[in-house]
């Protein structure tokens, strides 16, 4: 078998399948991770993201397919023979060791002498700004400090790749944002590859160079946060991001990029730039992001959809208004509070919704 290994790739997954008994956790996954890249693997629980990470770490072995790490096929290679340290969701710090002994652990396992071990561990504790806690017990540290110990412990061998399994999920919102900044700058300073598993879109999109979205063991989309956000590939991704309204219909007119799509709500003009080729009569699914929706009071003779207000949610300076159409679909609109004062927003009141044709994004994968 010939390998077309991208010289910039440090990890390559080639048709990787993982089964536990009759349950398929990961179903034929292919992707590469570049050197120095910050890659996030995102999905809801049970989507296979953690299993994928554990296979990279060597904690699980793929049932089928190959995993290449730094040019070497590592199937069947035990985790202790790889240099793929992981930061665990539970952090998994050793409660019977001090902070410094925790950080020394992997050096000790590699037979590094005591003097060097201490020096290297203290260097990393210093880098993570927790040197003053070196002789403390783990139970005496705060959540954020433990996080730093876990990072120091994983990085002390100066690996080429660091695996992180939802490391921030136990922290409160404020600390989470601070630790995101720490992780981002750490990754840039070290220039090593981070593979970061999370179910949180905000964590993935704020830190990662590229994001892999998984569902039911399969990859739904890979791309930069911008690409994914502005051009979700399919309905799953659009729904997962949760910020768009999704419409399905049939292509009824077409001239170049200007399409006319017939839906249950009526006919809509869609500017289909970068859309896949479709012929008349084909099914088309397009999205309009909530912030690109416009609302106007009912009765104004504007085109669009009539919908009833069902609820409202405050998001900082903006609010998301949830509406229900006459056919029972839910739609949402995100606007500043100032814009929303112009319309009657009581639950039960009816509004008109419309948008520009260039705000539409045709889902290529549908």
């Amino acid at each position, binding site marked *: 078998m010939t390998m077309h290994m991208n010289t910039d790739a440090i990890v390559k997954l080639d048709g990787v399948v993982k089964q536990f008994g009759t349950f398929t956790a990961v179903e034929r996954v292919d992707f590469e991770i570049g050197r120095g890249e910050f890659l996030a693997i995102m999905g809801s629980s049970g989507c296979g993201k953690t299993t994928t990470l554990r296979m990279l770490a060597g904690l699980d*072995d793929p049932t089928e397919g190959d995993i290449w790490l730094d040019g070497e096929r590592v199937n069947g290679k035990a985790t202790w023979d790889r240099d793929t340290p992981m930061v665990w969701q539970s952090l998994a710090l050793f409660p019977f060791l001090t902070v410094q002994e925790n950080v020394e652990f992997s050096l000790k396992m590699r037979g590094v002498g005591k003097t060097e071990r201490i020096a290297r561990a203290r260097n990393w504790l210093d880098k993570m700004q927790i040197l003053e806690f070196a002789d403390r017990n783990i139970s005496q540290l705060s959540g954020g400090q433990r996080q730093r110990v876990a990072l120091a412990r994983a990085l002390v061998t100066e690996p080429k790749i660091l695996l992180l399994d939802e490391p921030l999920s136990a922290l409160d919102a404020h600390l989470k944002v601070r630790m995101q900044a720490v992780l981002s700058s750490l990754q840039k300073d070290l220039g090593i590859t981070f593979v970061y598993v999370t179910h949180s879109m905000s964590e993935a999109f704020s830190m990662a160079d590229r994001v892999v979205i998984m569902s039911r063991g399969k990859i739904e989309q890979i791309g930069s946060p911008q690409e994914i956000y502005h051009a979700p590939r399919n309905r799953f991704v659009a729904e997962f991001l949760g910020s768009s309204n999704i419409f399905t219909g049939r292509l009824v007119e077409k001239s170049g990029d200007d399409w006319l799509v017939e839906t249950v709500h009526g006919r809509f003009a869609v500017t289909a730039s970068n859309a896949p080729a479709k012929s008349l009569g084909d099914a088309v699914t397009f999205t309009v992001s909530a912030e690109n929706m416009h609302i106007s009071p009912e009765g104004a003779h504007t085109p669009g959809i009539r919908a009833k207000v069902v609820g409202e949610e405050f998001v900082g300076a903006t609010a998301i208004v949830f509406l229900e159409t006459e056919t029972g679909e839910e739609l949402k609109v995100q606007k500043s509070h100032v814009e929303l004062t112009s319309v009657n927003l009581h639950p039960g009141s009816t509004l008109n919704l419309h948008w520009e044709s260039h705000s539409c994004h045709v889902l290529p994968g549908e």
Partner: protein
Amino acid sequence: MTRSRPSLFSLVLSLPLLIWQVAFFLFPLIFLVAISFWTVRNFQMTPDLNFGNWDRILTRGTFWDAYARTAMLATASAALTSAIAFPAAYAISFKLSERAKQWLVFVLIIPFFTSYLVRVYSLQVFLSDAGIINAFLDMFGIGPFLMLNTTFGTLVGMVTLCLPLVILLQVFSLNFVNRDFVEAAHNLRCGRLRTVLAVIVPSARVGLVIAALFAFILSFGDFVSPLYLGGGNPPTLSIMITDITKSGQQWPRAAVVALMMIGTLLTVAFGAITYAYKERGK
């Protein structure tokens, strides 16, 4: 980590215990089955396939008398211990503070680490005709009562043996009873005693049955109380085994008695556990 075949590591950790228990627990029990078919000639056991031992033991009235007596004693002990233990376990689980609960549990563990034999010897002093209890009662002009070398004496010993374990097992099962059920029952005007009988006992049924089962197992196999507090005559099955063993090389017959005991215990245990879980699943 998927393993197609067991690693050296896993074998080194799991096998020693397995080998030890197979060699020194399972084999002796299997060996017991084997020697029950052996014959004894000139005070020497010889391998054989002889049903004579079974025939001899199982056709004797003395064996069946002892069997019935042992079964009755064990049943009485299990019932008595459970009845005495339940109010205490209920009070410990429902009425005491967390701290008092922990202390009592610790106190109840202590008897497991005292010699049962020493305790029974001490009980002899309490129960004998001129012993502590009769001397105490005599001050009020009552008695003396015959307690030592009676069935009563045997049961006192067995209850001493079983009570701590039964209380502990009952407390553990009562701790798992959902407190909301009890309050819901009170809220539905279910009285105190009816709540105990209609809500708490059924909820803790598995634990209560298993506690009684342990009392039965311990009492059924006990030979210290029947011997030193019950007088040893007429004998229970355990006393029969020790008598047969000490009086020569008739081990095959002792093995038959032992196997009958194991068979009974397994049947009772299986029955009790089936009963406990069937009721629960209803």
